């Protein structure tokens, strides 16, 4: 058992972070259903991956999340409001509240893997003891740029850890139709780097595996690939209807393995957590999330000209003309 798992405060922190993630996800889905948020990808059932990864990282490490790591972003200090802003269609959600060096949510599947290689190269060139952590889905392992990134990370022995959130599905495509590889961890073999599987519904196991990989990378021993096996209990996003392509029976079955109840059972069994604790926590989290929603909904919109504000460091002449025209049109209205 890793040291941190002997520390009840740490276990409770992990637990609460997972529950916060789930509470937030549920709220976000509700906001989308009522037209107050854009399409949203819930991380229901996969909280242990996001939280476990983030908990293993240091502040100065760098996270490159895909679109389903709300739990990791939250752990690293991104505010609930910012996450809502982003999924609500406002660029300011990616502006600042987390570590300033972390990458924003990455939507084009797998395309952040080479970014992680570049970040890790920067760490190595500067001799910094930092690691880039890139999280992606099982579907991402089919993308060529992911293979390219793994390969380059390997040959340059870069401080980067790739974590695959294997939630069983890429929208409607199950892993068995995504690849003939028996495991996704073995994708690492092609790059000559270590690959391992971990139970992605066990936040302790995830954190421990990522900590080990980070320590190796930090010590100059190169990259690693970790496949965290979990399950997508929700639809792919709020725009998806998973009942079209998978059975309820499968999903119900997987509910038995979900990470939050599992850690709660463990905490309760070890007498670290009571019903009263649970209720207190749920109330607190719900208050926290509601407050965030309120401040999200109250956020003043970006002005139209903000479309232009960050296209270049300084606005080129012809773009300044377009900006002026947009402003003029707006004031005419």
């Amino acid at each position, binding site marked *: 058992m890793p040291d941190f798992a002997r520390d009840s405060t740490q276990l409770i922190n992990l637990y609460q972070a997972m529950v916060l993630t789930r509470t937030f996800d549920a709220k976000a889905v509700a906001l989308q259903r009522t037209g107050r948020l*854009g399409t949203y990808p819930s991380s229901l059932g996969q909280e242990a991956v996001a939280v476990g990864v983030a908990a293993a990282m240091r502040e100065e490490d760098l996270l490159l999340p895909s679109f389903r790591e709300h739990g990791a972003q939250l752990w690293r200090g991104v505010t609930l409001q910012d996450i809502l802003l982003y999924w609500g269609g406002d660029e300011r959600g990616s502006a600042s509240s987390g570590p300033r060096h972390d990458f924003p*949510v990455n*939507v*084009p599947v797998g395309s952040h893997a080479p970014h992680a290689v570049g970040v890790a190269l920067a760490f190595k060139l500067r001799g910094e003891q930092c690691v880039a952590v890139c999280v992606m889905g099982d579907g991402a392992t089919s*993308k060529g740029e992911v293979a390219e990134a793994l390969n380059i990370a390997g040959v340059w022995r870069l401080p980067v850890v790739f974590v695959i959130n294997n939630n069983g599905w890429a929208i409607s495509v199950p892993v068995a139709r995504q690849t003939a590889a028996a495991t996704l961890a073995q994708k690492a073999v092609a790059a000559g780097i270590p690959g391992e599987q971990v139970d992605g519904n066990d936040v302790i196991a995830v954190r421990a595996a990522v900590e080990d990989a980070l320590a190796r990378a930090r010590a100059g021993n190169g990259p690693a690939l970790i496949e965290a096996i979990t399950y997508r209990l929700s639809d792919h996003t709020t725009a998806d209807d998973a009942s079209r*392509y998978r059975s309820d029976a499968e999903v119900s079955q997987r509910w038995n393995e979900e990470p939050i109840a599992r850690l709660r059972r463990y905490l309760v069994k070890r007498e670290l957590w009571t019903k009263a604790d649970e209720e207190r926590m749920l109330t607190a989290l719900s208050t926290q999330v509601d407050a965030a929603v309120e401040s999200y909904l109250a956020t003043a919109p970006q002005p139209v000209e903000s479309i232009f504000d960050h296209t270049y460091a300084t606005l080129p002449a012809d773009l300044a003309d377009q900006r002026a025209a947009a402003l003029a049109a707006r004031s005419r209205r």
Partner: protein
Amino acid sequence: MSEITLVQAINRALTRAMRDDPTVVVLGEDVAKDGGVFRATEGLLAEFGEGRVIDTPLAEGAIAGLCVGLAAQGFRPVAEIQFTGFIYPIIDQMMNHASRIRTRTRGRLTCPMVLRSPCGGGIRAVEHHSESPEAIFAHMPGLRVVIPSSPARAYGLLLAAIHDPDPVVFLEPTRLYRAIKEEVPDDGASLPLDRAFVVREGSDLTLVTWGAMLKETMATGERLAAGGVSAEVIDLATLKPLDSETVLRSVAKTGRCVIIHEAPRTAGFGAEVAARIAEHGLLSLLAPIERVAGFDTVMPLLRLEQHYMPEEQRILAAARRVLAFR
């Protein structure tokens, strides 16, 4: 016979093509069991089976590349790229292979493939889901580029694209997928791939557009008509090869032209239309050409996207400037 939407027309054309020609196969991410994220391929798996309706792994570049192999072997693959934000990895295959295998082998191997992709903004989608990359494909020799803007044109043009012996990039404006309904007889009749459509006749001003912007452009035409101005509206529909004749004929009549598109202005396809007029229709022009286009900025997230896409106001203002010019 009931009226159907654009996405239903796509589905109808796919079904018809697959029934008529056993070499037509449909493939892409989530096209089989899920029927496509917009349901364009719904029902195909049930009717045609796993051998002809194929869910692929998540790899756009390889999807395009394997179509080249399938097509060279005599199949007519119709692949779906889920959103145009993820279409860029196919450019290498389209440019270096699909569009030139006929030339490279002096006609020995050919590439009758169709690459469908939903395009454009306006549906409050996630980041990278609202792109308009038609100009990039229109620059590639050996390709055809088609964008339908009505259910009937979607049906007829998609059938034509599938029958065509050369590769076609077929972009479907998501904003129109369910915006209009019309009757579309399932008669298997295809539309020409080298003809623009005059969708509104007029004599005072030519409005040239394609794809989703047809909606605002037609609205502008109506608005102008209310003010006594007769605007001709052209839906280019087939960008490559471009039917410049129809555009030039209209401008010869009206002397005034506004080009409207959603993609970024600079080096957008509107530039090509303007250039053709400046080359071959200059003497007819009574006023400078105007382009009303997306800004040369990144497509904003959903809160501001309606300000990025040319609004009716912007089109109208341009039209009025062009009309007022003496």
